[in-house]
């Protein structure tokens, strides 16, 4: 019997609670006033914004812009939040709202596209370089060429030419320099993270010295990896992670490429590309000196079991926090075709449906000034995208690792630019290439079989 009353009572309670939800804002303000009690910093931020808004409103019609990046950790969020606050103060008539997006594994780009489709996406957002073409050809991002031409202080030449090639590419004419899809936020390269303790114990020559002497190539790489690998069953000479960047290096350094020269067809079956892939296959199948392909190499590296770990600058914060050994970095070894590396980048772009294109363009510029880039470079997770010695000098001061120069060397010595695929679909190309390369590196497919079939399938991801 009493059960019934309790149900009734609870339902009434819920109805009341629903009533509480009435008229959101009014209920929110007292909450913010009480923020000093137990609320998080987030709530405190809201209070600040609430406090700022009325003051700003009095000046002029304020334009509110939302912008978003893909931060990897709290430190990054904090830096971008403070950048947002600073720019908010310095840009007239613009109020900024920074929203940290999800990480790579939580589908940052997919969520963005969903929101673009629904019309709920932010005005300005960061996307990786590989996605520029997809967003541009779908008409999701704004071509800012006209705005840029009308801005005296702006010049394409201030940024690294690799990313700018793609950011000014016109998919309709096939020419570069005709559009402006966005401005690069930063660049990054690969390096080998070295476990100095394992290196010393193995008695192998120091790659940093070899690199200084110009002797750091695939042969000496294998020599060092083999020596370290011999230290024990659970010790590996080398480790990389399973995505296009790491294996792309081996292909590029052998003189090959994913595509043909004008990036309109698959180039994975050229002799050079196959030579690079074959060497990498031997690392896994013949020399047997690496963490099994596909296993995340970061945990064993941080556990002190991997001698050389190939990764970008973004792995540095993790190594600082968790590595229980002496470590440093060295540039990637020179391949048969000379030095090689990737130039990774991502860009700030503007939502094609933004209501305030001019303000958004102003924000994109403000986000890529030398000053802003300096603040972000302080994080140590990436290199400024402006060609500026000051910015690079600032980057070098931030250690460990002691050998920061290795990242800059990678940038200077013939890097291949991470790039979108204007003549096809990069995600689909990647979806064909990735599993096929994995099968080769795991020894499930021979190089010959790979060569015979890969481009048939990969070419279908290009526009006819």
């Amino acid at each position, binding site marked *: 019997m009493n059960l019934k009353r309790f149900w009734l009572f609870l339902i009434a309670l819920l109805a009341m609670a*629903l009533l509480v939800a*009435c008229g959101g804002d*009014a209920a*929110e303000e007292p909450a913010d006033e009480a923020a000093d009690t137990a609320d998080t910093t987030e709530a405190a931020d809201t209070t600040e914004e609430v406090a700022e808004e009325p003051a700003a409103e009095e000046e002029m019609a304020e334009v509110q812009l939302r912008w978003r990046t893909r931060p990897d950790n709290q430190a990054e969020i904090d830096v971008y939040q403070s950048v947002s606050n600073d720019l908010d103060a310095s840009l007239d008539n613009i109020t900024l709202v920074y929203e940290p997006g999800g990480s790579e594994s939580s589908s940052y780009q997919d969520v963005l596209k969903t929101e673009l489709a629904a019309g709920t996406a932010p005005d300005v957002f960061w996307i990786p370089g590989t996605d520029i073409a997809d967003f541009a050809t779908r008409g999701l991002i704004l071509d800012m060429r006209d705005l840029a031409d009308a801005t005296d202080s702006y010049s394409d030449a201030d940024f690294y030419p690799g990313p700018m090639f793609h950011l000014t590419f016109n998919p309709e004419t096939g020419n570069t320099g005709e559009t402006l899809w966005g401005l690069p936020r930063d660049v990054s390269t690969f390096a080998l993270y070295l476990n100095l303790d394992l290196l010393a114990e193995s008695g192998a020559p120091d790659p940093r010295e070899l690199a200084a002497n110009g002797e750091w190539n695939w042969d000496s790489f294998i020599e060092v990896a083999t020596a370290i690998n011999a230290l024990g069953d659970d010790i590996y000479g080398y480790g990389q992670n399973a995505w296009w960047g790491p294996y792309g290096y081996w292909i590029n350094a052998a003189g090959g490429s994913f595509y043909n020269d004008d990036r309109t067809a698959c180039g994975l079956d050229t002799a050079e590309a196959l030579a690079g892939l074959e060497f990498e296959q031997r690392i896994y199948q013949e020399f047997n000196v690496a963490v099994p392909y*596909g296993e995340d190499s970061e945990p064993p590296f941080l556990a002190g*079991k991997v001698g050389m770990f190939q990764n970008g600058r973004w792995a540095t914060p993790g190594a600082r926090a968790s590595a229980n050994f002496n470590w440093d970095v060295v540039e990637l070894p020179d391949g048969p075709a000379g030095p090689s590396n990737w130039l990774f980048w991502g860009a700030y772009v503007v939502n094609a449906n933004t209501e305030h294109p001019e303000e958004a363009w102003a924000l994109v510029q403000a986000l890529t000034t030398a000053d802003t880039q300096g603040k972000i470079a302080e994080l140590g997770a990436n290199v400024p995208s402006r060609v500026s010695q000051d910015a690079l000098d600032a980057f070098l001061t931030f250690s460990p690792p002691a050998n920061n120069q290795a990242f800059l060397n990678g940038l200077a010595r013939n890097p291949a630019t991470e790039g979108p695929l204007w003549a096809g679909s990069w995600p689909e190309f990647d979806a064909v290439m990735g599993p096929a390369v*994995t099968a080769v590196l795991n020894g499930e497919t021979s190089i010959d079989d790979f060569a015979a*079939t890969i481009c048939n399938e990969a070419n*279908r991801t290009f526009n006819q």
Partner: protein
Amino acid sequence: MTTATVDPQKAPSSEDRAALWLRLATIWHAFLVVAGLAGAFIVWQGADTAVWQKAVFGVLLLGLAGVSGTAVFHINQRRSRGRNLSLAVNYLGFLFALVGSMHQLNMFVGLDSLADTFARGLPFLALIFVGLWLGSQTERFEGDLIRQQQVRQVGRAIAILAGIIFLFAVGLLDGLATVPSALLEGWETAVFLSATVFFGLMVWGMWQQPVADIFRATNADSEMLNGYLFLSPNLLGFLIFFAGPLILSLYVSFTDSDAFSTPNFIGLENYAEIFNLDLEPLASADQLASEVLDVTQYDELNRFTIFGQSYIIGAQDRLFWTALGNTLQFVLLAVPLSVIPALFLANLLNSKVPGMRFFRAIYFLPSVAAVVGIALVWQWLYNATIGYINYGITLVIDLFNTIGLPLTDPQIRWLSEGNTALLAVIIMAAWQWIGFNTVLFLAGLQNIPRALYEAATVDGATPRQQFWKVTLPLLGPTTFFVVTTTVIQAMQVFEQVFIIMGTNPAGPSNSTLTIVLYLYQKGFQRFEQGYASAIAWVLFLLIFAATLVQFQRQRTSGSSYES
């Protein structure tokens, strides 16, 4: 809703009142006819409304006018149908206006601000439950009615007090304060609220027993009205949030919708692409695919040899077939792995030895945990270089080695090798499902009458015979339920793979690409939503077929003693 009992002496007055109601109802419905027609006209004239909005609202308003008109007609004829129609219209109008008012008062969107303050009310929410729990502890005082009463009252008092504090803590006053201001703000709110009141009053009036008597409403009428009334919240929500989207999704599957541009109707093309296969004979078993297949259209899916002749199968969408294969593999392994051990454990647990409740509790634990969290834990357990699973295997191998059995450590690369990745996901899923299935089987076992076993024992049946001849047949309905739900669950596997495989959910060589994952990639990464919807419908048909097969088998085995 109080029941009006008919008192013979007051009958005339209540009849008068009923007649008044009917007159009011006639006026009201006449008004609704006019309002509906006018509204439909205005909507149709609206310049900036989309066509589909015009159509939907136009039809709704015309329907309102039409039904109201019919109702007036029947009411005047004193036909029961008039009352029913009137009730239906007014009730739907009431709901619509109520939801509209709630929307105007920001009650739905305002849940966000409830979320802001909700944390402060949590302790009191917990206290409510404590109070409820306390109040239900009456059986401890069996026989002592006074004590039972006291317990109930104390529990209720605590719950009510906590509830009031809870409401204040989460900001009831602030919420209430917004109501008058919202009323002053715009006329829409006032319109919706007054419409709510009018419709509500009309429903209430028509519902009255004297009115019903005038129409000579039968028990069947009352049952029908009650039936629709009780089902209505459920049915309406279901139509809006389930059936509507369902039909839309079927339509989308016949278009090339990409979420960004206007979709074109393309008929069955999406389905044709999914099922486009090509079978060609091969000159030799290892002939290159490009020599026999049109490689601009087909990818090699598989090749096989039958009676000495080799064939190759090409598919236009190879990944769909890969995904289908993986999903079926998942079902074929994960279902037995989570059902058979569960049956076994349930039989062990069914004995009357002490401690069984403890074990039952432990086995059930994984079922209450979030898949996302579980997958994150297993991801680290599966780590091939520093994970516990390989460490455990190494320990066992070492043990064998020390006792003289030379075995080599397999060093399984659980998540990074095509052969094992799917198996790893299967093991994790089975681990999570076993406990739940065990509990279901246990329930089925406990429903089997003891007497049957006793009879079997008298007949000299061994425990094994008892299991095969008594337990298993009588568990038929439970097994059907367990297998069906597990299969349906397994066909839709997504979260496990999505989380545990990290940045590459499709896994090494696409070995963990499941149908739902492929659908997600197509629909929400490539934004081929038309194609994705077609995949979704294919998956639905597969699930439907699987269920039907099991249903048939269950029926033909005819072993159920329950019904």
